[in-house]
């Protein structure tokens, strides 16, 4: 627990604040990453400014001094850009990005009590922008500003102001209302309000994201102009107020409809579209609630299985009214399940965006120019996977730039473009999510890897290995190809950790590399961690599930296709190739003796290595809710998880990768 907790309520509010901080920070990052390319820099700077500002506001309320100090500095610099004093360029963007990182660090410092890294250089870089005008070091003002300042009131004088109030769309977007303004104005004195609705066009060209009304207010007050302006200050830039003299005011009032739509139409439309894009309304739900929903739903799926099983026992034929009703119910449940799953799904953009920053950072430190290409950012991924994806991807991206891509000179010599290309792709393939990290660098150097592995004692002198096996050595613990550990990738986290975290998610990672052409890492992940499409088979009087995604084919048993290779080792002739075969009973009991050979199932892994397994009987194909075994027991070799069958019994789900690794003699070490 950290020291800042005073009581539960405060802690709840703090939690909400941190959640909002997280949102603001990701918004910040999103805007920053596209800041350089955009033509509407000022718009984006505004968004960024607002995000930083609201973080500062909350931080002030919670007395998080470090956060206030830094966000204020950041804000002050942004203000300079907002006012047009500076123009956004790549240097400033990278400084902003670093500043955003520091903000993230400070927020997590307050939230989790993590270490606070030194940010002096960032502070300095930010200060550089301010230096020319004023060296910024006084922040205490800002905190104090929240207190109340008494204002002298002069009863003698009475002024009449003529105001023209033009609210921008953002004014309403922020949940503000013109009535509030008028209410406050009314408190200051006697007001006469007139609405100028002449600008409202006919419906055909009416845009919902545009404001057309102008308010003309005549106010008779004892207050001075500053006090009137103060009312509008709260709404900031979202409202425009003109103080007019009497003649102009009358002129404005009598203006006729002069809406010149022709020239304005185009840019406004573009803007409107952009705005509406962001306005997906969302609600915040505790992930636990969604998880509960998922669990309950899986119970329903299991129960439906039970109903089906009962129907079979009671000999209710398909096509009977009961069967039809149950089918409908199943259809609905299926849909419901997909919808609930979609609730947990997020576009992979969330992670990819972070990678953009990593690329910038890494390319700066390693002095390599890198162009990042993103594909399939909208691919949706289950939240549970998304959260675990960030770390391994970060590492792989760093690796690709640091180790994969060559320096500029070498690239030029070998006839490549001087900038390195890094591709991040995400897409769906046969019920799995594939994420690819590809660089067009030098590719994996097998000799170097082999020698390195030898010197590290990962392999011994007389290992004869194929190219692919050598490439896979980089996943061995304690392996690093760069001779001197660099600032970037050599952080004690190796590819073995990447592989482990991927396989923990039920995923697989494979390498495709060609010397001088580049390296492609392909990660294949299950769509969700909670449902699997599987083939049910019986072996050794027990029922097992094998994920359909790894099944190539199921065939009837034919004795003449099997031949003995050596004692107890068998081969199988499958479509012009010979693949290993074994009886599934061996998964349970190694001394198993074949009896009821009924079918084969051909399975393959991501590397397209195939094996055949003999089963007693293939029963059905269905969707299964994945249940963890480790949660209450421990990991069982050969099985990735379990599921609950229609009769309430438990069936184990076969871990195909493990089987192939164990029974494929080539990989067996």
């Amino acid at each position, binding site marked *: 627990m950290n020291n800042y907790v005073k009581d539960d309520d405060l802690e709840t509010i703090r939690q909400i604040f941190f959640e909002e901080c997280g949102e603001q920070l990701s918004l910040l990052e999103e805007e920053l990453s596209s800041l350089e390319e955009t033509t509407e820099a000022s718009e984006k700077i505004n968004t960024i400014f607002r995000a930083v500002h609201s973080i500062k506001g909350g931080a002030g309320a919670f007395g998080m001094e470090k956060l206030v100090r830094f966000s204020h500095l950041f804000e002050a610099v942004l203000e300079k850009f907002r006012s047009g004093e500076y123009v956004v360029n790549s240097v400033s963007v990278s400084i902003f990005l670093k500043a955003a990182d520091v903000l993230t660090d400070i927020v997590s410092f307050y939230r989790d009590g993590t270490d606070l890294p030194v940010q002096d250089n960032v502070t300095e870089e930010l200060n550089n922008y301010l230096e020319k005008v004023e060296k910024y070091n006084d922040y205490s003002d800002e905190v104090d500003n929240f207190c109340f300042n008494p204002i002298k009131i002069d009863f003698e004088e009475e002024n009449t102001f003529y105001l023209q109030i033009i609210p921008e769309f953002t004014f309403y977007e922020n949940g503000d209302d013109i009535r509030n303004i008028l209410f406050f104005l009314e408190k200051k004195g006697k007001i006469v309000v007139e609405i100028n609705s002449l600008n409202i066009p006919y419906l055909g060209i009416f845009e919902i994201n545009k404001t057309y009304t102008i308010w003309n207010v005549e106010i008779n007050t004892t207050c001075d102009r500053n006090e009137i302006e103060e009312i509008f200050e709260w709404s900031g830039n979202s409202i425009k107020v003109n103080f007019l003299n009497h003649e102009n005011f009358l002129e404005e009032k009598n203006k006729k409809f002069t809406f010149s739509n022709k020239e304005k139409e185009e840019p406004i439309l573009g803007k409107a579209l952009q705005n509406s894009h962001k306005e997906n309304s969302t609600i915040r739900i505790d992930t636990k609630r969604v998880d509960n929903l998922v669990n309950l739903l899986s119970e329903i799926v299991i129960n439906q299985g039970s109903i089906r099983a009962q129907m079979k026992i009671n000999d209710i034929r398909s096509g009977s009214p009961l069967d039809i009703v149950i089918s409908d119910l199943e259809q609905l449940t299926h849909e419901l399940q997909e919808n609930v799953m979609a609730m947990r799904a997020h576009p992979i953009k969330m992670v990819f965006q972070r990678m953009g920053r990593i690329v910038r950072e890494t390319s700066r430190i390693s002095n390599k120019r890198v162009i990042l290409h993103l594909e399939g950012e909208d691919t949706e991924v289950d939240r549970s996977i998304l959260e675990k994806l960030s770390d391994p991807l970060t590492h792989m991206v760093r690796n690709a730039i640091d180790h994969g891509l060559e320096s500029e000179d070498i690239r030029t010599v070998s006839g490549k473009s001087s900038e390195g290309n890094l591709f991040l792709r995400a897409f769906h393939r046969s019920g799995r999510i594939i994420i690819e990290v590809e660089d067009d660098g030098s590719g994996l150097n097998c000799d170097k890897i082999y020698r390195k592995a030898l010197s590290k004692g990962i392999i011994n002198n007389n290992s004869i290995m194929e190219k692919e096996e050598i490439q896979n050595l980089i996943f061995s613990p304690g392996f690093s190809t760069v001779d001197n550990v660099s600032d970037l990738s050599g952080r004690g986290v190796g590819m073995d950790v990447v592989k482990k975290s991927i396989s923990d998610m039920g995923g697989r990672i494979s390498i495709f590399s060609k010397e001088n052409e580049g390296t492609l890492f392909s990660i294949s992940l299950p769509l969700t961690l909670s449902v699997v499409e599987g083939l049910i088979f019986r072996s050794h009087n027990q029922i097992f599930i094998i994920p359909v995604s790894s099944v190539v084919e199921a065939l009837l048993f034919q004795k003449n296709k099997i031949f003995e290779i050596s004692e107890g080792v068998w081969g199988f002739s499958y479509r012009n190739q010979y693949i290993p075969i074994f009886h599934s009973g061996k998964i349970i009991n190694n001394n198993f003796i074949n009896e009821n050979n009924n079918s084969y199932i051909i399975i393959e892994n991501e590397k397209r290595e195939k094996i055949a397994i003999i089963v007693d009987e293939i029963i059905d194909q269905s969707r299964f809710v994945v249940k963890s075994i480790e949660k209450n*027991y421990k990991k069982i070799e050969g099985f990735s998880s379990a599921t609950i069958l229609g009769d309430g*019994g438990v069936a184990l789900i076969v871990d195909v990768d493990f089987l192939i690794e164990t029974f494929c003699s080539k990989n067996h070490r």
Partner: protein
Amino acid sequence: MEKYLIFTSYNQEYAIDIGVVREIRNWTQSTIIPSSPAYVEGIINIRGTVIPLVDFCKKINPDRVEVEKKAMIIIENEDKTISFSVKNVLDIIDYNKNDIKNLPEVSQCDISDFVDGIISFDERVIFRLNISFLIRDCLN
């Protein structure tokens, strides 16, 4: 006063703190899991959760075989849910913690790892189980 659930295994009586007992069920066939210790009968489904079923008799004494298993006691302790198959569940008793006697110190005693005291109740000798130890040992 504390409440204890009394059950029999083989020909002995054991007591567990009622606080960790989630439910008691009739014994059912479980799904065998390969390469697991002999005392693990398999895994079962308890309202949507997959939990291991441990043969209590075998766990305490690997050489003994329970002829008749009638009940499963489902226990929830330290984030783990686990079930034990036992011969029968007898009753729930109130017993004062201070009246619990120590187990006599005998060498080569299998149960001393999991039993931390003796409850003498109605002239019966009931072994009180240290459930945390037992569960941890089953899961290793």
